[in-house]
């Protein structure tokens, strides 16, 4: 950024808050109000920092955003006064003195951790940026961010609402992570991607504890590094927070930060003009160190809100392919019906199977893709910490999902067509995505490796015009079925090698397309995956739930020395061995013989004991030995569940055991169902629409009800938590449920429940509403107009059975 003197160190100011407290600001008092009530004090703090040698000061506007500020004056006036006071001090000090518009967090926790939306946070920051830029700030300083998502909102707001340089620092905990879990790598990747002008740390602790994180940051970004540590750790003395590290000690430790790569230095809580003066004199004549990390600029890192995944040229990662409706009937149906829960289960299953990144594609004809992709991306991010690959060909959907994505995403995809490059590349550059480049263009898919490399080269060159480096691309050399074109496999392998060698780009590939049209596909897929890995594939887009694929991945890494001491291979060996043995069912064939004697069958016993895996295995074994699917349902699964349900009603079985049994029954039923002819067996009853009402984010009760209902064979349309009344009505009109179940935990949200009931009753043809939740009673339920009150999840199942005519 042009405000940082090249080749020199830039000095910032120290604390504002603790300086104002020394001048009489009380705990709990709004510091920004002092811009109007005590302007001389605020200006005096700035003047003291300039006198101590600061090149720039931060305006007293830390909390002056619309989400946080509740003082007794218009915000724009507070911000303008704050910047104005710093400007006056700068002018009085003379020379080249800068003023930063200081921006702190909103004090609200963003979704999904809290209830505050990304857009609302953006709006709060945007207002502050506009006011500060108009008042004459020289740059924007975003600081003390404790949540990567909020940091993104602030940086975007700064970039989109002014043309000033943007410096951003986060407040790490002593373990090196933010409150919501992001580490230094996540912060570096996000800020690089969003094209911030400098990145670093403030607050939290003193310069001594900041050192390892500055070292880490120095190896993770080429951006100038900013440090504003506290005067040590806060200590409580006589009920007051004090900072005990004096100016000399502070300056001595801060020198180490500069030696580790920092070039913009100042102080945070507890630091004073004396600290800045000591810093200045300790660093007199010193220049920033040359940050000789040759590969910093060529790293390829994607992140979620809490985890960074680096894609290197020396190793490989798995991208989970299962959230893509192409060829997947169940997922297609789930997306069409708004059954987000199904998608989330796929996300968690792939996460736990060892995927590193998840592809998310919701392309179903007739769906409002921009709305659905946006919603699903956020929902998936709420249950997994893996980075996502946003997969769409709709540029409107892409931009909306990129904007609301938490972290630095993978973008799937751009291709060599002019139209694609001119729409996707600027979006990737703006939102900081790594882009999958498909090796096809107006001329189609080149038949040769040579042709595909040429298209990739064209895309990468075009990307440079938007500021994208070769390391910002994953080239997909395109996997065509070997059954249609015999040379396909060889062309792909050659192209993988050449892209690495000639373009220096990482690669990705949808591996399983190779076997399309052939029998025994899993074996072909795994074999080709191994070949592709050998050819240097950086990221395979694969099914991580397919045992053959994960075994191939782990075997490749173990056999090529990428798995230290074969540790991962050994750790996963039991699962790999079990998967290859699972071709034949392991459980004894006795099950079917005992099936008529329900209480004795292994399936019955496994369900009653709540053992999900055992129940599924027992069902498989029974089927393998010739048991009739329908009688397994009627004589084992349903009676076992009934036994446990009755036990719960008689208080002999507890809720967790009831749920475990229900889930075991559900697992067994899923196995049996796949063996049934399409029309027979129990079809899903219901549906039941469930929601936790607006304003309420505690959804444990609703989730328990959903789990039990589903395992009792009901189709549940789960609308999630914090659901506005209109959305419930929309589902009622669309899905004509037999029952609507609403939950609320707190007295403050029962009002929203009442409103939802009123709306459903007024606008739908007599769909009954049942309510439940900690604060509700039968009387209260009647008072707010509910048709039914159920005291627990089993009660709701019984009610649903009654309403569905069982």
């Amino acid at each position, binding site marked *: 950024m042009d405000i940082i003197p090249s080749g020199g160190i830039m000095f910032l100011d120290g604390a504002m808050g603790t300086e104002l407290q020394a001048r009489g*600001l009380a705990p*709990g*008092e709004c510091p920004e109000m002092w811009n109007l009530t005590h302007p001389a004090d605020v200006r005096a703090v700035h003047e003291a920092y300039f006198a101590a040698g600061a090149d720039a000061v931060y305006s007293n506007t830390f909390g002056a955003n619309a989400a946080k500020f509740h003082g007794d004056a218009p915000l724009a006036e507070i911000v303008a006064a704050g910047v104005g006071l710093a400007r006056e001090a700068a002018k009085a000090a003379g020379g080249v003195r800068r003023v930063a518009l200081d921006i702190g967090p909103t*004090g609200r926790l963003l979704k999904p*951790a809290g209830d505050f939306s990304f857009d609302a946070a953006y709006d709060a920051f945007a207002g502050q940026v506009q006011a500060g830029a108009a008042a004459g700030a020289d740059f924007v300083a975003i600081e003390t961010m*404790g949540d990567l998502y909020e940091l993104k909102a602030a940086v975007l707001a700064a970039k989109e609402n002014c043309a000033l340089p943007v410096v951003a620092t986060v407040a790490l905990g002593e373990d090196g992570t933010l409150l919501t879990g992001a580490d230094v790598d996540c912060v570096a990747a996000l800020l690089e991607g969003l094209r911030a002008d400098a990145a670093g740390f403030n607050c939290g602790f003193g310069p001594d504890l900041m050192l390892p994180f500055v070292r880490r940051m120095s190896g993770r970004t080429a951006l100038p590094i900013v440090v504003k540590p506290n005067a040590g750790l806060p200590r409580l003395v006589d009920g007051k927070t004090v900072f005990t590290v004096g100016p000399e000690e502070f300056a001595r430790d801060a020198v180490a930060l500069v030696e580790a790569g920092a070039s913009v230095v100042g102080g945070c809580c507890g630091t004073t003009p004396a600290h800045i003066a000591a810093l200045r004199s300790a660093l007199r004549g010193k220049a920033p160190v040359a940050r000789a990390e040759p590969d910093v600029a060529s790293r390829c890192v994607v992140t979620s809100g809490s985890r960074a995944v680096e894609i290197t040229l020396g190793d490989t990662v798995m991208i989970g392919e299962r959230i893509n409706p192409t060829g997947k009937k169940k997922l297609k149906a789930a997306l069409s019906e708004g059954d987000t829960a199904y998608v989330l289960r796929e996300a968690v299953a792939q996460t736990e199977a060892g995927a590193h990144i998840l592809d998310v594609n919701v392309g179903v004809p007739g769906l409002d893709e921009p709305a659905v992709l946006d919603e699903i991306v956020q929902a998936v991010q709420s249950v997994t910490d893996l980075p996502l690959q946003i997969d769409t060909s709709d540029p409107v959907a892409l931009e909306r999902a990129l904007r609301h994505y938490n972290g630095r995403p993978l973008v799937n995809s751009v291709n060599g067509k002019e139209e694609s490059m001119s729409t996707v590349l600027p979006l990737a550059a703006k939102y900081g995505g790594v882009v999958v480049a498909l090796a096809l263009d107006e001329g189609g898919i080149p038949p040769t490796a040579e042709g595909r490399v040429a298209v990739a080269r064209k895309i990468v060159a075009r990307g440079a015009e938007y500021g994208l480096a070769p390391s910002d691309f994953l080239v997909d050399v395109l996997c065509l079925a070997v059954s249609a074109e015999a040379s396909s496999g060889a062309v792909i392998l050659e192209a993988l090698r050449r892209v690495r060698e000639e373009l220096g780009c990482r690669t990705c590939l949808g591996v399983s397309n190779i076997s399309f049209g052939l029998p025994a596909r899993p074996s072909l897929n795994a074999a080709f995956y191994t070949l592709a890995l050998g050819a240097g594939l950086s990221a395979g887009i694969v099914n991580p739930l397919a045992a053959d694929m994960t075994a191939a991945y782990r075997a490749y890494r173990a056999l090529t020395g990428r798995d230290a001491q074969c540790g991962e291979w050994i750790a996963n060996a039991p699962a790999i061995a079990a998967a290859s043995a699972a071709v034949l069912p392991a459980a004894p064939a006795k099950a079917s013989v005992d099936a008529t004697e329900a209480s004795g069958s292994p399936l019955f016993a496994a369900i009653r004991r709540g053992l999900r895996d055992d129940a599924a295995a027992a069902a498989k074994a029974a089927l393998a030995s010739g048991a009739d699917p329908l009688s397994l349902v009627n004589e084992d699964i349903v009676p076992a569940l009934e036994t446990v349900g009755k036990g719960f009603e008689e208080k002999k079985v*507890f809720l*967790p055991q009831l749920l475990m049994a229900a889930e075991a029954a559900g697992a067994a039923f899923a196995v049996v169902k796949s063996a049934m002819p399409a029309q027979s067996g129990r079809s899903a009853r219901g549906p039941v629409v469930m929601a936790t009402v607006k304003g309420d984010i505690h959804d444990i009760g609703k989730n328990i009800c959903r*789990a039990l209902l589903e395992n009792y064979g009901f189709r549940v349309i789960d609308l999630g938590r914090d659901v506005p009344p209109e959305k419930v009505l929309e589902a009622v009109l669309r899905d004509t449920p037999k029952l609507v179940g609403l939950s609320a935990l707190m*007295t403050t949200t029962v009002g929203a429940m009442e409103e939802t009931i009123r709306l459903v009753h007024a606008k739908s043809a007599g769909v009954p509403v049942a309510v439940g939740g900690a604060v509700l009673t039968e009387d209260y339920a009647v008072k707010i107009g509910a048709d039914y009150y159920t005291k627990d999840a089993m009660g709701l199942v019984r009610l649903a059975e009654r309403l569905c005519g069982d």
Partner: protein
Amino acid sequence: MTVDLKEVGRYLLLHGREPDQALAEKMARLGERASDAVRPARVWRRFPFDGVSVSSGGLRLDLSGTAADHLAGCRAAYLACGTLGAGFDAFHRRVSAVSGADALVVQAIGAAMIESWMDGVEDAIRAELEQGEALVPRYSPGYGDFPLEAQKTLLALLDAPRSVGVSLTSSLMMVPSKSVSAVIGVKKG
């Protein structure tokens, strides 16, 4: 942070009965994962108590009503806030997506953990009391007639969003969800 599985059983309403093997294994396994997911934080601050409120910097936390009864005879009060952090909620969301039983057990684990964490906060406060002082049991907004609305002032007086990362939703729930705020009176003798 370790998990007291007995306490977890209490929150699962097992009424003193031993969990069966499958449940016991689930509790132990999820307890370990929960321990990895939490990042507990805590903050407290002492204020003078005038019999009906504590105040500082233009903020006044009204404690009239049952809270004042509870603090009868106290001349000072601590405001305190503790949390398991946002990581616990993320873990809970993940298990909830897959299993209602796991979600229920994790919920109980969280309840046991935050209670034990707050007991630790009280112990730490007790350690800084003057000779002859003692704490009365903690009292939180939402108890008796102590309104939830009071959370706003209580958390502002602790600078809770910044100090421990705890903030309020628009319906006055604390997030992260496993957080507790409280007033703890100090009495003589």
